[in-house]
Structure formats: structure tokens, C-alpha cells
């Protein structure tokens, strides 16, 4: 009797392990289409209700965490304020100069801002992946709202990610901190171009790889999407979307390429309301 039980237990365990490997083999690199989409569609109203019901509790815990961190952040912000004041003065000068230049080249609408070609759809984050390996969030806007795969997603502060998969009323957004994410970007001013990749496990850090090691990049410089277009191919992200700020730029001589670290503008830990940029032409 006991042996029979043990045999049955082993058989079920083997079946489950084989089932897992089979599922992995069949679905790796592609979604299982109908099944995942169906389950996700079925659960998205439940997730939405759970998200709204638990928001007060989430906010209360976040308040404690943020208060704890605010003490350390206060001194850093004071230092930043001094630097930003200097930049603001410089920015005013640049704005005046920019207005004069626009008049000169008769670009009355200004360089078409990338966002203007898109139709932004507001979406609320209803769930988030539990591991840092897959940095994805689910939002409550889907194909019914015009959302499509690869649409860029932005938050109030900057680029957040892109739509990875979409269902009728919900969509999964791959964050820029996901290990499979890569965003073409440039440093302002200067225009050094490169590809932003995540530092898996550290959502406050992104890495910009660029080829041109002769160009200097300094701490505090802004990084925006470059939105290239060449030979019928185009970047998935429109140009000019703010991504982050350079935090460290180690000078490595005798290297053909360089890496700089940046802090994303968007607070990846507290994503709530986002905008999906639907429609529009890429790049």
C-alpha cells in the first residue's frame, strides 16, 4: 500500500516536472496566445477590483517606507536644488535662443514633438510581476482602447517601457528595467547616442552603452530617446522622450566603447497612472 502511494507520488511529480519543461519549451520566446490571453482577460477585472480595494493599504505602507527614506534623500535634494537652480538660469537663456532660432528657420510649430503624432491612452497599473527578472506591469487598457504591441509607455516623469502583449481590456508592459529591454537613446547636450540596457536587480540604475568613446559624458546630463529611422527601419520609441539622468560616467581609456550609468526619471517602484502612446509612426 505504502509502496503504491510512493510510486503514485513519484509518477505525479515526474509528470509535473515534465509538464513544466514541455510548457517552457513550447512557449519560450513567444506567448501561448489563446491560453494566456484568455486567462489574462478573465482575471483583469478581478485584478482591477483588487488593485482599487488595496490601494489605501498600499499607500499606507509606502508612506512609512518613503518617510524612512526621505531623511536621507533630503540632503541629496538640497545639493540637487543648487545644481538645478544653476541649470534653470542656463535653461532660460537657451529658451530665448531657441525661440529666436525657430523664428529664423520658420518652424512655427517647432520640431514636431514625438508625442504629438501619438494618441495617448491613460492606463492604470493593476498588477506587477513578483520577481526582478521579469519587470513587467499589467495595465487596465487593452486592444479595445487602441493599445497595440510595441506601443511606448510613459509615466509623468519619463519613459517607462513598451507594450509586450495585449488583450481586450488589459496589456502587459515590459519596463525599461526588464532584462530583455533595450532603448536607443542620446545624451543631451552633445547627442552621444547609445543603447540603454538595465542593470538587472537594480531598478534605480540603467546602463547606456555607446560606441563613440571620444565624446565626454558628464554627471547630471539628461538622456532622451533618440528615435532613429533608417532604411525602412525605425526605433520603437519616438525621439525626445526623457529617460533618465547620468549619475556616473567612468572614464575608461583604451576602450572602444563606454558605459555610463543613469537613474531613470520614472519611479519604477511606484508606477500607478501611465500613458500608452498609441498609433503614430515609429521613430
Amino acid at each position: 500500500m505504502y509502496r503504491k502511494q510512493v510510486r503514485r507520488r513519484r509518477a505525479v511529480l515526474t509528470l509535473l516536472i515534465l509538464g513544466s519543461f514541455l510548457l517552457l519549451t513550447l512557449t519560450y520566446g513567444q506567448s501561448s496566445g489563446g491560453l494566456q490571453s484568455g486567462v489574462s482577460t478573465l482575471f483583469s477585472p478581478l485584478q482591477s477590483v483588487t488593485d482599487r480595494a488595496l490601494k489605501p493599504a498600499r499607500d499606507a505602507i509606502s508612506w512609512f517606507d518613503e518617510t524612512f527614506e526621505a531623511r536621507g534623500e533630503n540632503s541629496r535634494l538640497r545639493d540637487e536644488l543648487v545644481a538645478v537652480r544653476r541649470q534653470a538660469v542656463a535653461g532660460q537663456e537657451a529658451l530665448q535662443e531657441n525661440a529666436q532660432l525657430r523664428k529664423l528657420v520658420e518652424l512655427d510649430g517647432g520640431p514636431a514633438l514625438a508625442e504629438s503624432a501619438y494618441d495617448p491612452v491613460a492606463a492604470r497599473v493593476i498588477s506587477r510581476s513578483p520577481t526582478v527578472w521579469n519587470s513587467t506591469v499589467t495595465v487596465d487598457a487593452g486592444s479595445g482602447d487602441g493599445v497595440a504591441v510595441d506601443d511606448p509607455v510613459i509615466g509623468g516623469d519619463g519613459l517607462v517601457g513598451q507594450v509586450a502583449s495585449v488583450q481586450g481590456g488589459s496589456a502587459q508592459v515590459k519596463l525599461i528595467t526588464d532584462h530583455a529591454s533595450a532603448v536607443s537613446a542620446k545624451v543631451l547636450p552633445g547627442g552621444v547616442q547609445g543603447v540603454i540596457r538595465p542593470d538587472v536587480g537594480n531598478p534605480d540604475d540603467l546602463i547606456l552603452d555607446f560606441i563613440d568613446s571620444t565624446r565626454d559624458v558628464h554627471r547630471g546630463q539628461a538622456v532622451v530617446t533618440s528615435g532613429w529611422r533608417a532604411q525602412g527601419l525605425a526605433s520603437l520609441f519616438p525621439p525626445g522622450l526623457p529617460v533618465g539622468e547620468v549619475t556616473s560616467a567612468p572614464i575608461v581609456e583604451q576602450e572602444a566603447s563606454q558605459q555610463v550609468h543613469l537613474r531613470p526619471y520614472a519611479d519604477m517602484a511606484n508606477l500607478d497612472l501611465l500613458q500608452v502612446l498609441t498609433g503614430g509612426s515609429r521613430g
Partner: protein
Amino acid sequence: MIVTPQIFARLVAIAVLAVLLQLSFFSRVELLHTSADVLPAVVVSLGLLGGSLSGAVAGFSIGFLVDCLLVAPLGSSSLVLLGAGYLAGLFRERFEIHSALVPPLVCMALTLFAELGFAAVQLTLGVDAPVSPLIVRDMLLKSIYAFFLAWPIYFGLRRALRPALVEESRVTRRRQPTVLGA
């Protein structure tokens, strides 16, 4: 564990509730830059209460649901969580749980196992980006959180599944009848 249709319904409800709470609440609340992962703790608790088979099946099912909802490669979470559930069940079958500290400690250890498992699966499937050493801190903090969350999870699940638990029903049967006035 004696699985009647009623208990099966309860187990399904527990799995769905755990996944919804994880994705909509625990994953979105960070303490010290790390969010808690209660799913390994739920699977381990079910393994400790129901044995290795229950633990493995619960782990596979919960992992499958998570992968479906996140539109992640199916099977990755199932594989890791079924391992955690099976080991918890084996622990229960080999050792007696004498102290109330044991379930949280097992949850903590097996959450660390699950986090290492997630990392191993992901690295095997291929990671296209550099990996920060901070990921180790994330794993350790997740297992510490699991220690504290295991108390309500384990004892809550034991209460919810009491009619199905073999040991619990034995204890109930052994209890002497109370004689009024004695």
C-alpha cells in the same frame, strides 16, 4: 490531505486569492527597495500541511496561473514552485513539526530556494543584460519577509483547511468529551 470537492474549491480560492494579492498588492509595495513574494510561502505552507504531492501540485498550479497572468514563458514559475512545495511536503513527511517556529523557518529557507530557482531558470533561458549584485540583497530580503509573512499564512491556511488535514482530524477525535459539572 483529504481532498473533498469542498476542500478542492477552497484550495482553488486560496490559490487565486494568493496570486491576486501578490500581483496587485505585495509586488507593488516595497520596503527597503524590495517587495515581498508570498507565493513561495503559500506553496510551502500547503506542502507542510498536505504533504509532498499536495505541495507539488499547488506549486505547479500557482506558478502556471502567475505565468498566464504575466504572459511570461509558461512553466518557469511552475517548475520552481513545484520544487519548493515538494520539498516542504517531504520535510513534513520526514519530521514532526513540534515548534510554531518551524513553518516560518521552512518558509524562509524555501523562499530563498525559490528565488535562487527563479534566478537559475532565468539565467538558463538567457539574460541579455548585466546582473546587479543587488539581486542577492533582494533574494535575502524576500526570504526574511517570508519568515514574517509565514505566520499568518501558515496558521490561516491550517484553519481554512482544517477539515481536510489528517493530523488535525485525529487530534479532534482524540479529544475527551467534556462532562458538564465534572
